[in-house]
């Protein structure tokens, strides 16, 4: 089909937008997600070493060819400043390897070749004698790998090649994911419990009052997230407004000030406050479309207020509950700033862990794997939701 005239113009006008989305959303997201399973660095930098390890049994040190290859490729990587890309991944598989690799690379340059690279390297560092060292290099050298996903799911590959749970004390990501899901669910329910009456009040008030109430919901919404979160710090901290008030009133002794922030309580409180408008607005939009005569009709038909609410009003607000709930839940599951500021140690969520691996530990593969799992969890919930309630019935305001 050829596009002509206004249609072609319309398509042309959307091109910058499509280009923008592709450049700013699809490409970075795709790149990041691909990092979770695709790690070509080691394979690109140490191709000959890996080729020499091919067919090595894994018992005892490998053949001389492998030592010769790595003795050539490590100094080369050092000169090309790509050694760090090898050292990081290998170090994650066997700690201490970063030092082994960088030192070896430096010392090999000055070592005179004396017939055996094997002896030369073991002379530089005895770690080269251990099969584990070579296993780590070999594992880091696979281009396509599931090890980030295994780690993100608290699984490990046993020496015999089978996959099993990590020892209990080193399982951290799955408990964190569960905690994140539970906190998000709790925040969603809390937002619903607080937001439903507010939305109803706004939807049924006369225009002047409802505009004022709506403004009171929206002004915090427009206020910087950082300001709102720090406001909670002012209120909730040990020397904060609420604790001082309680102590002044004699309700709590000075030595037992309540711990309301830098823990799960702080995360819960601040997140509920921050996400509340996302619940109120869809609910309000749905409630406003319900004619007030429905409740009057229910009463005239003999339903008391509770029956009228449960049988007539509540079912008609379900699309709003669904939309608001999904919105708050999805935002909560990926929430980062608020838990980082007020969560302390016990109030951290999975996003904070992702941020840690992106910014501090520079383990982008693991960060990407954790992000992917989060994305799959959200999509799964979305599917369940659309199966149960029907996405076409959702009203996003």
């Amino acid at each position, binding site marked *: 089909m050829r596009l002509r005239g206004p249609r072609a113009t319309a398509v042309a006008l959307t091109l910058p937008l499509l280009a923008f989305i592709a450049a700013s959303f699809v490409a970075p997201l795709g790149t990041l997600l691909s990092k979770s399973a695709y790690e070509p660095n080691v394979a690109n930098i140490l191709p000959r070493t890996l080729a020499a390890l091919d067919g090595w049994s894994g018992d005892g040190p490998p053949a001389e060819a492998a030592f010769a290859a790595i003795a050539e490729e490590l100094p080369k990587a050092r000169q090309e400043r790509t050694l760090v890309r090898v050292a990081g991944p290998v170090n994650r598989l066997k700690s201490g390897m970063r030092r082994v690799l960088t030192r070896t690379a430096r010392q090999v340059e000055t070592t005179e070749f004396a017939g055996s690279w094997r002896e030369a390297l073991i002379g530089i560092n005895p770690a080269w004698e251990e099969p584990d060292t070579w296993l780590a290099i070999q594992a880091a050298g696979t281009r396509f790998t599931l090890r980030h996903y295994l780690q993100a799911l608290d699984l490990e590959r046993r020496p015999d090649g089978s996959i099993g749970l990590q020892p209990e004390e080193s399982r951290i990501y799955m408990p964190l994911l569960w905690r994140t899901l539970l906190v998000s669910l709790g925040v969603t329910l809390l937002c619903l419990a607080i937001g439903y009456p507010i939305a109803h009040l706004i939807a049924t008030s006369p225009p002047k009052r409802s505009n004022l109430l709506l403004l009171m919901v929206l002004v915090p919404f427009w206020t910087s997230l950082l300001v709102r979160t720090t406001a909670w710090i002012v209120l909730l901290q040990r020397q904060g407004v609420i604790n001082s008030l309680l102590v002044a009133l004699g309700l709590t002794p000075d030595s037992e000030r309540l711990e309301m922030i830098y823990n799960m309580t702080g995360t819960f409180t601040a997140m509920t406050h921050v996400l509340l408008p996302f619940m109120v607005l869809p609910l309000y939009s749905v409630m406003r479309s319900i004619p007030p005569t429905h409740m009057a009709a229910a*009463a005239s038909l003999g339903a008391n207020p509770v029956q009228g609410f449960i049988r*007539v009003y509540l079912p008609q607000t379900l699309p709003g509950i669904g939309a608001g709930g999904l919105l708050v839940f999805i935002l909560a599951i990926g929430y980062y700033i608020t838990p980082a500021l007020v969560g302390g140690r016990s109030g951290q969520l999975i996003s904070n862990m992702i941020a840690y691996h992106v910014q501090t530990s520079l383990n982008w593969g693991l960060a990407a794997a954790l992000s992917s799992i989060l994305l799959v969890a959200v999509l799964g919930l979305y599917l369940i939701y659309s199966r149960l309630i029907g996405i076409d019935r959702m009203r996003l305001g």
Partner: protein
Amino acid sequence: MNGKKILPPHIEYISVRKTYDRSNWVVRDLDLHVQRGEFLTLLGPSGSGKTTCLMMLAGFEAPSAGEIRINGAPVGGLPPDKRGIGVVFQNYALFPHMTVGGNLAFPLEVRGMAAPERQERVERALALVRMEGFGDRRPGQLSGGQQQRIAIARALVFEPELVLMDEPLGALDRRLREELQYEIRRIQRQLGVTVVYVTHDQQEAMAMSDRVAVFQAGRIEQVAAPEVLYEEPQRAFVASFIGENNLLPGRVLSINRGVCAVEVDGRQIEAAHVGDLPVGADTLVAIRPERVTISHEAGRFANEHEATVEDISFLGDHLRVRLSVCGTSSFIAKIPNIVGHGGILPGDLVRVGWATLDCRALEAESK
């Protein structure tokens, strides 16, 4: 008189007043009785307080003063769900998340009725409004007229003695409205329920009601059967609101046994004396356009005046003639379209005449 116990009226409004802001009275000193089995219409322009009256009866609003009684018992403290009154709303107020059958079963479910009996009642109610087989549809799949039939069935399915209807046909087109007027009247007669009906459409009120209460500015101007309202309006507002009337301002000159002489624009008109208008009082003389005769001969009527034809509109079954007479240039006469209607033309000088009892001297509105 014939030995029967005298029952109280089905509904009584006793000095009922209503204000929302403590300064404007939406309803003022309302006294009204409705008999069992009666079809009473509250008719008036929008904002005249008729809907508020209905809402107070249903229990959605509380009177600011006065009392409403049903079967002789005050209902002041009774919430709407305990009153057992069927209500039909203008926008139907059908529950969109339930089927038609679910809507009809709702009032029976909240009364704890068993499923088999419920089903039977629902079927009967659907048959009553001639909507058999629609039980599984959703309200959204029905036309406006069908939705209103279902709304009526729902208001009747729990067999209330009293049904209130708030402009139920307001959102429908004319043909459908006439069809449903007839249906509502048939159902009301068939079941013998009392109906209080609110509308601003006087034709609807005339066509359906046993009695009509005409509202204006929170007061009832007159309560009477439709033909009485039309033939014997007691007040100028009723005379102008029900049908069409020529209203000529004048002053009462003399009163003699139900007939009074009124001076209008220097001429004298003989009119029926209504109420207790004293001699010398300002009055509005109401003359129905269809009771005015245009002729060239003199001496046939007590009131005859020379008039100039200003304008003639041909409306099929009648001619609408605008005349200059008695100090107004918008005096309307309706001349039936029968052979020999005179062949009058604009600009002609004619004689208009009407009988004494076809014009009524009413109290002028200024109070």
